[in-house]
């Protein structure tokens, strides 16, 4: 009885979640980074509720971007170092499916906690109550795209010894539409104006990333492992 790609997908997701659980202290790091960046803005810009309410959407999303960047390294690094990545590439299952499994596990361990914590931070930044649904939706739709597009970047730089900042330079231009569309949606919601437009565009971008990013990542992994 041949095993399907779905079995391999779920096995890989389960394995990655197991690994994350085993080192669950490390899940907190990107979250803490997120919280610290958000708290830097009221400290440096202004602590007036009015000003904070205006910049809240941008602050949260920029912090989410930077936190996603930080957490991306863990996606392929340890697999690359102990040779498991090569074994994944040599599996007869489509590499894109296995890559998608890794990205899913990564999103569950890094993107989902962001979605949970962000409303609390938004509350502290005095974000208008009407904007909270938009905030949650934009994070739910946008963070998978962050993981997917980031996977392309980390796949390209995983073989480099000094990849660090190069990853940021590669991926941040790709992240710009996600940031801008989400911020627009939240700001429109705060002004009590219909905000489905940017969210739909964000959804389109996420779906595009879901379809094409695993393929690009698989190709990039093959190239990096030469």
């Amino acid at each position, binding site marked *: 009885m041949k095993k399907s790609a779905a079995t391999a997908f779920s096995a890989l997701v389960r394995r990655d979640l197991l690994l994350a659980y085993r080192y669950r202290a490390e899940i907190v790091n990107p979250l803490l980074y997120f919280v610290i960046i958000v708290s830097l803005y009221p400290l440096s810009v202004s602590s007036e509720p009015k000003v904070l309410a205006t910049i809240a959407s941008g602050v949260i999303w920029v912090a989410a971007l930077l936190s996603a960047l930080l957490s991306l390294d863990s996606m392929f690094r340890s697999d690359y170092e102990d040779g498991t990545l090569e074994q994944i590439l040599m599996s007869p299952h489509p590499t894109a499916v296995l890559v998608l499994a890794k990205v899913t596990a990564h999103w569950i361990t890094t993107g989902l906690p962001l979605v949970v914590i962000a409303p609390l931070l938004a509350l502290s930044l005095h974000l208008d109550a009407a904007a909270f649904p938009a905030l949650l939706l934009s994070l739910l739709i946008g963070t998978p795209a962050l993981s997917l*597009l980031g996977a*392309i*970047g980390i796949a*390209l*730089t995983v*073989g*480099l010894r*000094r*990849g660090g900042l*190069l990853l940021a*330079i*590669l991926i*941040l*231009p*790709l992240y*710009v*539409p996600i940031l*801008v*569309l989400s*911020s*627009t949606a939240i*700001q*429109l919601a705060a002004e009590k104006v219909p905000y489905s*437009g*940017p969210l739909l*565009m964000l959804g389109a*971008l996420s779906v*595009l990333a879901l379809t*094409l*990013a695993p393929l*690009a990542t698989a*190709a*990039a992994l093959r*190239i*990096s492992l*030469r």
Partner: protein
Amino acid sequence: MKIRINFNYFLLSLGCLLLLSLLLAPHTQPLQGAIPPETNAKAIGYQTEFGPIGTGITVFKRRVLNSRFSSDTTLLNKEKVEQMIQPKGTRRFDRNFWLAELLFIVLIAYGFGRYDSITGFIKKTGSLKYTYHLSARFIPWLTAIAVLLLLIGLVDGLVFAPIDAKQKDAYRIIFIHVPASSISLQLYVFMALMAAIGLIWHIKIAEILAAAAAPLGAALTAISLITGSIWGGGTWNTFWEWGDPRMMSVLILLFIYLSIMGLNSAIEDRRTAASATAILTLSALVIIPFVILSVNYFNTLHQAQTQIFNKNSMDPRMARPLVIMIFAFMFYTAATLLMRVRAEIIHSERNTQWVSEEAAGS
């Protein structure tokens, strides 16, 4: 025999350049749409359509609106409406574009007829040695034409083009600004195409072309941003307008170019570097429309529109040097690209026999 071959290549290069220009050349028209009676005609904004398809759409829209308005002109002065819809001087602009397109179609048809020699040519350029010697023959011509066109365009634009109503002489920087931005966009598409070819078929010359195009594109984008900010600073006193969607998109394009250059230099093995850069170029190519969309959306929200011209049309005496300058930049880009490609070829083939012969011979 030799002269025949050169003539074919010359026509082919001309055809390719025309293709690039027609695909991306801008065609500016006043905004079409329902014009309410109390609107001040001068306050209508501009739209720019790109390429032959865009031109066709604009012309078609204009003809349709024209027919609609001709029955409904009791509210407005008919002449004013016609002036709004088909401003003076644009008719000849349309005609020139259609003529150029016809020429392009003729060249493509000729190309199909000479299909074998073209595919033979493409196969031969796969050999780096052949390309090295071939580009040696092209570069002097391209440079000469570029210099010539630059001279003509600059003299025409700086001396003979009329003064703008509002900006007097300060607008003349567009003769550098617009070609630079146009070429940097075209060059990105070219780079992405070469990257795709190099990635899929592992053709070395495509990888080298993609790698050589990146710094050139980055430089042109930087020139476009710098001249744009000089222009803005001079005329509207805003050196950097964070709200301008076009400026933001070009800035992101600059970052993308720089990231491509960064990745290329970070990987030591040339082959791996070329493939990795290709994936990044293609991913960024897919994202760029989203960047433009999102930045436009964000900025229309905040109503930061920049009006470039306050006239209803671009005076053909201004448009002509602009087109000449665009072609001049294209030839310049081609010449510089080939020079960089030659240097890359020598570097990557430095261990082969023909290069050592070359070095010994000279």
